[in-house]
Structure formats: structure tokens, C-alpha cells
């Protein structure tokens, strides 16, 4: 059962990744693209964890955690740049 569940989830997140890419390629302006990138980060985390589940390994957990933490920071940096121009003031 879990195998099919992971396959289904892989398919969903893979499709989500392609949709994010579509937004990045076709949107106007930077703001939407930053949002798309941020969503892409989240989908990537999901894919990593799913991959870990499918091969029964914990080794990707920390990598996923760091991507989660740092993805947030880079989104904040992009956002601050757009809002204030200066990211550290």
C-alpha cells in the first residue's frame, strides 16, 4: 500500500514541480517567480522525504531540514530586496 501511496505522491509533487516551473517561465515580474521558487523549495523537501521513505533511509532527513530552513531565508532575502532594496538595514 505504502508503495502505491509514495508513487502517487511522487506523481503529484513531480506535477507540482512542473507547474512551479511553468509559473517561473511565463510570469511577469519577479515577485510571482520568487513565490514559485519558494513553492518549488517546499515541493523539493517533500520529494526528498518521499524518496527517503521509498528507499527506507533516514539519510536525507537533515538535508531536507536544511533546505527547509534556508529556503525560507532566501525567500525572505528576495522579498526584502523587492520591498526595501536593502536587505540589511
Amino acid at each position: 500500500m505504502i508503495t502505491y501511496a509514495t508513487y502517487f505522491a511522487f506523481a503529484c509533487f513531480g506535477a507540482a514541480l512542473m507547474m512551479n516551473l511553468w509559473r517561473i517561465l511565463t510570469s511577469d515580474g519577479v515577485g510571482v517567480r520568487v513565490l514559485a521558487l519558494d513553492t518549488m523549495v517546499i515541493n523539493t523537501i517533500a520529494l526528498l522525504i518521499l524518496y527517503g521513505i521509498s528507499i527506507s533511509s533516514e539519510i536525507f532527513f537533515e538535508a531536507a531540514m536544511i533546505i527547509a530552513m534556508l529556503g525560507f531565508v532566501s525567500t525572505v532575502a528576495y522579498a526584502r530586496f523587492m520591498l526595501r532594496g536593502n536587505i540589511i538595514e
Partner: protein
Amino acid sequence: MSLFLIVALPFLGAVFPALLIRAGRNACAWSAGVTSALAFVGLMINLPAVLRGEAVTARLDWLPWLGLNANFFLDGLGFLFAALILGIGLLIILYARFYLSREDPMGQFYTYLLLFQGAMVGIVLSDNILLLLVFWELTSLSSFLLIGYWKHLPEGRQGARMALAVTGSGGLAMIAGMLILGHIVGSYDLSVILQNKELIQASPLYLPALILILLGCFTKSAQFPFHFWLPHAMAAPTPVSAYLHSATMVKAGLFLLARMWPVLAGTPEWFYIVATTGLITMLLGAVIALFKDDLKALLAFSTVSHLGLITMLLGFGTEIAAIAAIFHIINHATFKAALFMSAGIIDHETGTRDIKRLGGLRHLMPVTFTIALIASLSMAGLPPLNGFLSKEMMLEETVHTVWGHSHLLVPGLALLAALFSAAYSFRYIAHVFLGPKRSDYPSPPHDPPVGLWLAPAFLVVLVVTIGLNAQAMVGPLVKVAASAVTGGELPYFKLKLWHGFNTALLMSTVATIGGLILLIMHGGLERVWNAMPRPEAKTIFDTVIGTLTQVSRVITDTLHNGAISRYAMIFVVFTLAIASYAYFTGTMELPTRDVQDAPLLPIVAWFCLISATAMLTFLHRNRQLALVLIGVVGLIVSLSFNFLSAPDLAMTQISVEVVSIILLLLCLNFLPKTTPVDSSLTIRLRDAVIAGVAGVGSAALIYAVMIRDFSFPTISEFHLANSYKGGGGTNVVNVILVDFRGFDTFGEIIVLGIAALVIFALTEAVLASNVRAYLLNRKPEWPQSGDAHPLMMVVVTRVMMPIALMVAAYIFFRGHNLPGGGFIAGLVAAIAFVMQYMASGFTWAAERQRIFYHGVIGSGVLIAAATGMGAWFNGLPFLTSAFGYVHLTPLKEFELATAALFDLGVFLAVLGAVMLALESLSRFAWQPGMVTEHAMDINPKRDDPPDPNTDQPASEGEA
């Protein structure tokens, strides 16, 4: 005294004059003199051994695998030259003390002089040709400093440059020649090379080696056609001319000819190249010298002529000629140094060196006159002075020399040169000292103080005594030196004044009388000479150098025009060319691996990567968008690393990615937001083609590598096998970083620290300059949102701070055995701090930051170094790691490894470097009024009355 000490003394002593000049000019001169005297005494202690025919040696293996050994040996030849260098050096130090004026920096002068002296002594005592080359180049450099000593004179600077260019390029040729010689023999030790005459002369490389070494010798000894630098080097102060350009440096080339004589001489090539060059130089120098009006130029060309004479004698290749050459080296050094010093005295006391403005000085300067008279007559070759003896020997040798099929060519030309030599020597006396007294000297001439004439006087005493009693004075020394040159037994000889009526005496008489006749006819001859067109060496040299500079500038400007696209193109095209060459000439084995199936999801990721990259190529001029796209690329790359089982790399990749994006965004604040179009469409299309070909080529290469097994066993097996056994960790990546390649890592954290400090220093410099005014008054380029520090963000980042630090600690501690480690942990911790700067503001964060980042970097490097050095106490090499297991009661048993301590150093250095760099860059944006009392301000104007004590800026408001 050990030979090492004799060579080292001048170098060690060179420090003292520069320091002691503060104690006065006498102390300065004394320190130089005592150094030289000590070395001279040390040399003299070895005299008895040398006269017995023993070679004194001192050996020290320096870099034996390169064949470079610090070996010295002292035989007759080396002793003779070392004695000349140190002995005349002492006299020059005395002379220079009184010659240099108060305006001249005397400490510098003596320091340069001692450096030069040490280098010269090093040349003549070296028993290793590579060591000899090192000293050879040192003489070129130190003589450059000495010739250009009067930096304010353009002639001095130009003469120094010319001397360096000529002798330096000759030195380069000689390096090649020496390497060939060492290659033929299989050893770079002179004593070995000198035993292998047959081997060297039978080698097909003999001629190239000979020519290259001779180029070095001829440029150094100012032989035709490289003689032109010597007269221009006369712009140096007279002590330098007397020392370098008569007694020592120009004789270095002769020394080497003599040193290599046993193995290089005796062949027709040697005879025709060396003897002919010497003969031409001798004649040419003598002729030009007669028509020079500048005293020092006259002496310079006369030196060129006499060097040619000695070169010719060495070129003859016979034992007696070698004896004559050695003898003339001594004689020339004595009379020519004395003459240079007397020319210096005349210049010093009358204010001019122009012969046309002198004359009648014999009554005004009787002491100088006596010195110059004896030295000139010796130079002219008149009995009973020492110049006569060696000139007789030279003429006698020429009579026995056959050039081509002619018996008369060499003696005839030698006679002509001797005739001109006599003429210019007489002119030096007649036109400067004889004749009527004049009333228009630039300053009233009188004899100098005793300090100035003592040194030349001592030399002319030698001139006379050697002339009268040659055998007793220098006979044994000439004998050991000449036998060192020939490398064997010498025929019987006796240095004496009277040889009976023979051809040489007849030639001498003709030369002397002819010289007098030439002197009488000088006025008429000079008009003819001046009317003749002559090539001017300096113009030719300047043209050549100018052309070379022009050519190299064109090449440099073509390759380095400042556009990175140009550099990238050159690099890529070159790589492509080499790769195509390898592909078309090499062979490729058949694939040994199967191509694996690609699942759908990796293809999706690959598609994301390619699309983002392609889009970046087209939209990169929008810099902010480019950064977002780079973010996509970084994310997918990190994902791929995970998928390909490299979680360490994945974590490193993503953390470096985020730090770089923050850094670039900080910079982008001050940069144009779009990249301008610099190059034309054609060029961009060309670059696109090149880049496309290179990209496809790289992909094909990678594919070709991946479907084959490695030809050689890889190093990874070793790492996997030894990671736990040797480094105490199961995470091989981390063990490589902190143990196998720990030394690299140690270097890298130092470099990282330096880079961060440089960024800090540059920031300080920019903020201290007038750019600061611009920065302080900068207006934002687009309307800003009102919240500088939004409440949500501040809260979230503060909550996240301990979590992030905990993650960093967790990553750090597990690093040795599982993915993680100090580098990643350092980056994560840095990002945890940067979040606070971003959310709560620079001022807020800086106030709470109590440890300087410089200190964090420093402590990191120190901890890593101390950990590495800890291994020394166990008698192990730097950075050998140790590990053990510790059991503390409430905890489970855990491992302690020194590598973890080293990793702590890495962690601190990375943390400090990243923070220092980011903090420095963010200081550019600081403006007055950014100080906020409210770190979590929701635009304080909205609900808080403005605090009168703080300046609330206008920009904080309506947006």
C-alpha cells in the same frame, strides 16, 4: 675559516651599513670595511692550503633531488678571484668613504656594495653550477642597484636598465646552457663536470651548450657585440665603476670561461668563437677609447679592450695563453682600478671629466699625476711595469697562433690593438696632465685628501713591484690559478721582465712608437673619426627595447582587453583545441558499462534545471530575475546531489547558495539593476557558437567517461578502507576534509579568513573616502514599503534563532560519522545570525553582537593549528589525528576525535568569515536615521509619537 662563512659574511654584513648610518658616516664605512676585512682574512687563512695545490671544500646538501647543493670549493682560480674581489673591495670601501658627498645615502651604498661582494664571492667559490647561477643573477641585480645609485640622474637609471637587460638576458641563456651541461654529465657539481671533458665534447649538445654559456659570459664581460652596456654603466659613481667595471663583475664572465676551460676549451669551435670575439673586442675597444673625451668613457672602452684581450688568450686554448690570461687579470685589476680612482679624483677636484677641458694638471695635482702616470704607462705596456709583462706574453702567444690559414692575421690585429692601447694611455697622460696650465677649470684643482689617494696609491705600488719582481710577488699564485684553469700540469714558466730580443719585444717597441705617433696625429684623426658615420649603440638598443615593448603591449592588449567574454573565449577556444587534438590523435576504448534507465522524476528535475538555465541565458540582463533563476538551479542541483547519494554535497551546496544570494542581493542594492549590452550581435553569436560547441563537447566527454570503467584504480577505495581505521569517522567526506586532506582545509580556512578581512579592509577604505558622502545621501531607486522591520518577520526569526543554532550544533557533532561537519554547520550558524540582521536591522543586531568577527576567524584558525600541532607532542607529523572512546555515566559511550576539534576550527573560521563579509557589505547602506528604537517597528509614526531624542527619517514614512 669555513667557505660558508666567507660567502655569508658580506651578506650578513650588508645589514650593518644600512643601520649604522644613523651613527654617522664613519661608523657606516667602518662596518662595511670590517666585514670585508674579516672575509679577506678568512680567505687568507686558506692561502697555504691553496698554494700546496689542495682544494678546500665545504659541502651542504640543499635540494639534492634537484641537483642543487650548497657546495663550495676553493682552488687557485677561486682564490685569486676571491682575493681580488675582497681586497679591491676593501680599497673601494676606503675610497668611497671620501668620494661620496654628504647628500648621497651612504648606508644604501655600502649595503648594495656588500651584497654585490657576497654575490661575486659566491660565484667564484661555487662548486655547483645551479648555485653559481643563483649568485650570477644576484650580481646582475645588485649591480643594477649600484649603477642606478644616483636615482636622480636619468643616465644612471637608463644605464642601470641597459646593464640589467643585457646581462640579465645573457644570464637566461647561460641558465639554459648550464642545464644542458648538467644534463650531459648527469650532475650539477662543478668538480664532477670538470672531470668529464671527453663526454661533454663528444656530446651532440656540446655546441648549443657552449654557445649559450658563452652568451652569458660575453654579455657579462662586455664582449663584442654586447660591449655597449659597459660605457653606459659609467653613469654610476666612480667607486662602483672602479670595482664592478674594472676589477670584478666584468671579470665574472672571464672567470667562468676560465672555470669551464678544462671541459669546453681545446676544440675548433671554442677557438674560433672565443678567440675571434676577444680579438675583435680588443681592437674595437682600443680604437673607440682613443676618441672618447670623457675620462670614464675612455677607461670603459679600454676595459672592454682589455677584457677582449683576456678572452682572446683564453680562446687560444693553450696552457701558456691561460697563464698569460691569469696574469693579465691580476695586472689589469691593479692598474685599471687605480686609473678609475684617479679619474674619480680628477672629476671630484676639478668638477669635470671632459679631456677637452683639462690639461696642465701635473703641477696642480702632483700626487694624482704620479698615480695616473704609473698606471697609464702600465696600461700602455711599458717596462718595468706589470702591464708590460703580460702584454709581452700576449704578443708572444699571438705569434704562434694560426687563424684559418693565416699566420699574420692574429699577430697583426693584436699589434694594431696594442698600438691603439698605447695611444689612448699616452693621451690620458698628455691631454690631462701635460701641456700648459689653464685658467678655466670648473673648480680650482688641487690634490685630494689622503683618504682618496691612498687606495689608488697602494695599487700603483703593486703595479711597480709586480712589474719588477713578478715571480716572487705573484708567481706561485699565478701558477696555482693557471693550473686550476688548465686542470693539469703546466709547462715550466717564469714571470720575468727580460726575455731577450724576440718578436714580442719588437712588437712592443713598434706599438709604443706607433702609439706616440698616433697621439701626435690625434687632432687630425679625431676630425676624420667624428666625420665617419658610426652606429650608436644606445639608439639601437632603445629601438629594440621599444619595439619589444610595443609588440608585447599589442599581444597583452589583444589577450587582456578587460572584457571577461574575451578571456572566456580565449580559454574555451584553447581548451577546445587541445581537446580536439586529444580526441583526433588518441584512442578510445569501447564502453564497458551499460546505460542506466532514467526514472521519470529525475527527468522532471533535469527539465527544470535545463529550462531555468536556458531562461537565465536569455534573461540574464535583468539581474534580480537572474538571481531568482540561479536559486532554482541551485535547488535542483542540491536535489540531484541527494538523489546521487551525496547528502554532504547537497547540504553544502544549498547553504553556500543561500549565503551567495544574500551577498549578491546586498551588492545589487548598489549596482545597476540591468546588465548593459556591451558587444555586437555578431560577437554574441560567435560566442554562442563557441559556448555551444564547448558545452556539447563537455557533455560528450562526461558521457564517454561515465559509460566506461576507470583505467586506473581510484583513490576512493583507499579512503573508504581507511576512513574509520585512520580517521575515526565513518563519513568519508568529512574525514577527507579534516584528516586525509586536512592540510588543504587548513590552508583554505586561512584563505577564507584573509578574503573576509580584505572585504572588511576595502569597506573601511571606501567608507573613509569621499564615496561616503554619496552613500549617505543615496535615495532609494523605487518606492519602499513602510515596514522596515515587519513584526511577523522579527518574531519568526527570533524564534528560529535557537532552532537554527541547534541544527548547526547537531550538524556539527554528527559530521564525523554522518552527513554534516564544521563547514556546513558554520554556514548554517552564519545564516541564523544573518536572519537577525535582516529582520531586526543592522543596528539592533550589531548592538547585541559582542564578539568581533575578526576574533572568531582568528580563533578558528588558531584552534585548527593548535589541534594540528598537538600531533607533534606524540612525535607525529602535523595534523595526524587521534581518537578514542569516552564513557561518562549518564551518557552513552561516545567518541572523541581530535579531528572534531579541528572541525571546530573550520566551523569558527567559516562562521566568522561569512559574517564579517556580510556585515562589511551591509555597512555601505547605513544612513543616519536608520537607528530605530523599535526593532519591531510598525512604522512608529502611526501609533507612537516620534521620540524627540532620535531622528526619525522622512524615508521611513509614507510609501
